[in-house]
């Protein structure tokens, strides 16, 4: 960890400083404005949102970093994961814990297979036409959304009971919260650490990082880069699906969910720098916190929670203008 900070480039060191200062400012503002308890609740909500956004954004960022494909279908993957998970969770005849695990496994596998088919069948032939790749993922996202609506109906699905072993409450900042929220944060942190370890401590991770640097060179070394591409795409899709399933007991499943999280994830990777894993992780939390604080602020002062949407976009505009390659992106 210490060596990490010692080896930072000046730009990244400045970005770290900016992030820390910004988060401190956010927390200070919310503490002054809302008081201790509400500020704590807001921060907790922000971190929770950040973890959920991270699950979509990390896939987006990994896929873009390695494949140079901006996968606009990532939101659709989250949506399909959520709906398939919902389907399995409600239709199985077993205890809640078993059903929840079954929902996770089936949703992740379903979306993973879908991602594999998409990458090998549709995206792979288009590597020499990058514009069409973007357009294809964008169009596919719309088509998938339509199909989900056609199959599951336009009505939003109500949030389900969390699985039995998490169906208890605890008190934090004077507010009774379900353990399920802690579980989401735990899941997000596990993903963060897990993908970090995968990238930094395994052979595949080395190949992926090398591929991000220069995929042709990796191929020249005799490694099947295309297979790694597919793997990363599947990994990204599966992470998004996992985020979707995690949302089901918390928010239910709605058709708007996919695009909503896609926009958040886009903001995250723009702020964090496309293709940078640490940037994505940090930016998710920053975006989550910003959004939660803005929501609370606009609720208390203007009675208009929509303004929170604008705050995220403003943050993105500012970062884009100050540093077009993102806080932790590669300098161009």
């Amino acid at each position: 960890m210490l060596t990490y900070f010692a080896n930072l480039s000046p730009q990244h060191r400045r970005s770290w400083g900016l992030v820390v200062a910004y988060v401190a400012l956010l927390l200070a503002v919310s503490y002054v404005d809302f008081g201790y308890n509400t500020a704590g609740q807001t921060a907790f909500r922000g971190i929770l949102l950040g973890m959920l956004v991270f699950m979509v954004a990390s896939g987006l960022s990994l896929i873009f970093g390695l494949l140079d494909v901006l996968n606009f279908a990532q939101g659709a993957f989250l949506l399909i994961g959520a709906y398939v998970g919902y389907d399995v969770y409600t239709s199985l005849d077993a205890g809640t814990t078993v059903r929840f695990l079954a929902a996770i496994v089936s949703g992740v596998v379903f979306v993973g297979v879908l991602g594999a088919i998409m990458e090998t069948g549709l995206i792979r032939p288009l590597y020499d036409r990058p514009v069409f790749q973007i357009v294809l993922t964008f169009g596919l996202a719309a088509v998938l959304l339509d199909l989900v609506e056609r199959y599951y109906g336009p009505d939003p699905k109500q949030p389900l009971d969390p699985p039995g072993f998490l169906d208890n409450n605890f008190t934090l900042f004077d507010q009774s919260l379900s353990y399920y929220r802690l579980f989401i944060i735990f899941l997000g942190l596990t993903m963060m650490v897990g993908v970090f370890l995968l990238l930094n401590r395994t052979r595949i991770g080395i190949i992926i990082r090398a591929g991000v640097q220069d995929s042709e060179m990796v191929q020249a070394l005799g490694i099947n880069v295309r297979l790694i591409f597919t793997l990363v795409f599947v990994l990204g899709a599966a992470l998004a699906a996992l985020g979707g399933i995690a949302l089901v007991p918390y928010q239910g499943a709605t058709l708007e969910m996919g695009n909503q999280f896609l926009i958040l994830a886009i903001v995250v990777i723009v702020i964090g720098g496309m293709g940078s894993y640490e940037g994505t992780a940090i930016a998710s939390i920053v975006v989550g916190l910003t959004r939660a604080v803005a929501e609370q602020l606009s609720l208390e002062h203007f009675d208009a929670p929509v303004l929170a949407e604008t705050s995220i976009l403003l943050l993105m505009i500012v970062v884009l203008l100050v540093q077009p390659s993102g806080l932790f992106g590669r300098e161009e």
Partner: protein
Amino acid sequence: MMSMIERTIYANTQKIKDPTLRGLAESAARLVLENWAYLLFVIVLWRFPYIVADLTDTEVQPRRPTGDSVFWQSEMARALALTCLAMSYNLLFGFSGVISFGHALFFGAGGYVTFIVLNEYDASYQQGALIVVIGITLILALFSRMNVRQLLIIALIGVLLTLLLMPGEGTLSFYQAIGLAVVASIAVSLISGVVTLRLRGIYFAMFTLALAEMFWVLAKSGTFRDITGAEDGLGFRDILPESFNPTPTFDGSRLDMYRLTVVFFVIVFIAIRRYLNSPVGRVMIAIRENEERARTIGYNTFYYKVLTMTFAGVIATLSGLLFVIWATDKRVHPEALSLKYTVDPLLNSLIGGIGTLTGPVIATLGLSLGETYLRNETFTLDTGLFGILTVWQLAVVLVVGLVWWLFRRPLQTGLRRVVDMVRRDTARAATFASGTHGHWALILGYYGLVVLLLLAVGLVIGSEIAHNLEFKGDVYNVSDLWELFLGILFVVVVMALPHGIVGTWNTFWANRRVRRLEQSAQQSAPKGNNSAS
């Protein structure tokens, strides 16, 4: 490769300008001869209500607005508004290479700004508008590389427009509202263009998407119900003022509105064509082909891109207004800002052919009218292809066929390995019986197997789906399948026809002509050699 239209226009520019009467007559005749297809199309569009009326034996302007002719007038006008949207998207995506995923913002802005201004106008807005104009100029000055003269001109135009369009007191007329909508779309596209066009393609795409989504959320939310009407949208009953009289017989009836739409469509088409063949448009195409090179030559590519974006934004705004008048019964809903109106023109331009003028027109009209037609028709479950396959089974066959087509290369390599293996064995077994018959039999067997597999899978899964989905009785219509069909069409076009329908057609004929020329050159070449020797 030059498309047919580009070639025509190139020929037009090559003409010598002859100011005499005879010269003018000649140019007019040439114009008609070279554009006969477009003229025919416009005439058919103009007579379209009468043609439908003749075919279906209904009235063009019945006392009660029912009947096929009236229905198709509305549908056609709606489709034409969408066509203008697709053309403006294609101008941005196909001709300047800028991928914007926020085109719905302009589309929705048309209705929203006009209606909000009509409903909400207050004289004090004039000062606000002046501040906005000055703000835009300042932003342009800060972020663009425009020189002082260009900036001054823009500021001057802005101030003049503000003073002209916004009276000091009282309410605004319809024209002023439309004018303000246009000014607003210019402002939005200028600001977003100046802020974001410096970004690389992908950042730009993401930014526009986020921006449009944000406005959609804002328009939908109940917070601004006073201004936007939230989910209900904004309405305005008498959108055209009494004084609107382009022709003596104009009375604001449906037929007149239809003709107004056709006129708008023709103007947009000519404007885009004119724009593309102006020096600015040529630079635009150069930027699409190679931005680095265009910049090296000395063009301020950024300036041209902002200009094109503004132009496309204005067209999208106007077509959005037209669409609101036609499709949603003089009400603008938040849906007009939703992703649908970015995806629709994108799909239509791609299917028709990006970078072609006629592609989006053909695709939008075909798909939009085709959808309307098919949605109104009903089919029973038993009628399908030759009474064997129901429509669902047919759909599954198509999907599985598509998957097979996409994976044909890996499948074929695998198969070739098997074939090689088998051939080696048979060759070993019958050393003297050589020949390729075994090979062909295998290939035939393979394709036969594939077809059988497709049929089997289609029959099983198709009937499975048909049984599991609930239809209204035995009758259902195509709306259940339309999105699937559109998705498959989209994927096929992106994968197999990157130039779209019109682009592929043009390429095919251009290649053929080149081949013919080469052949005739080869035939005439030996003669020259003989005479020389």
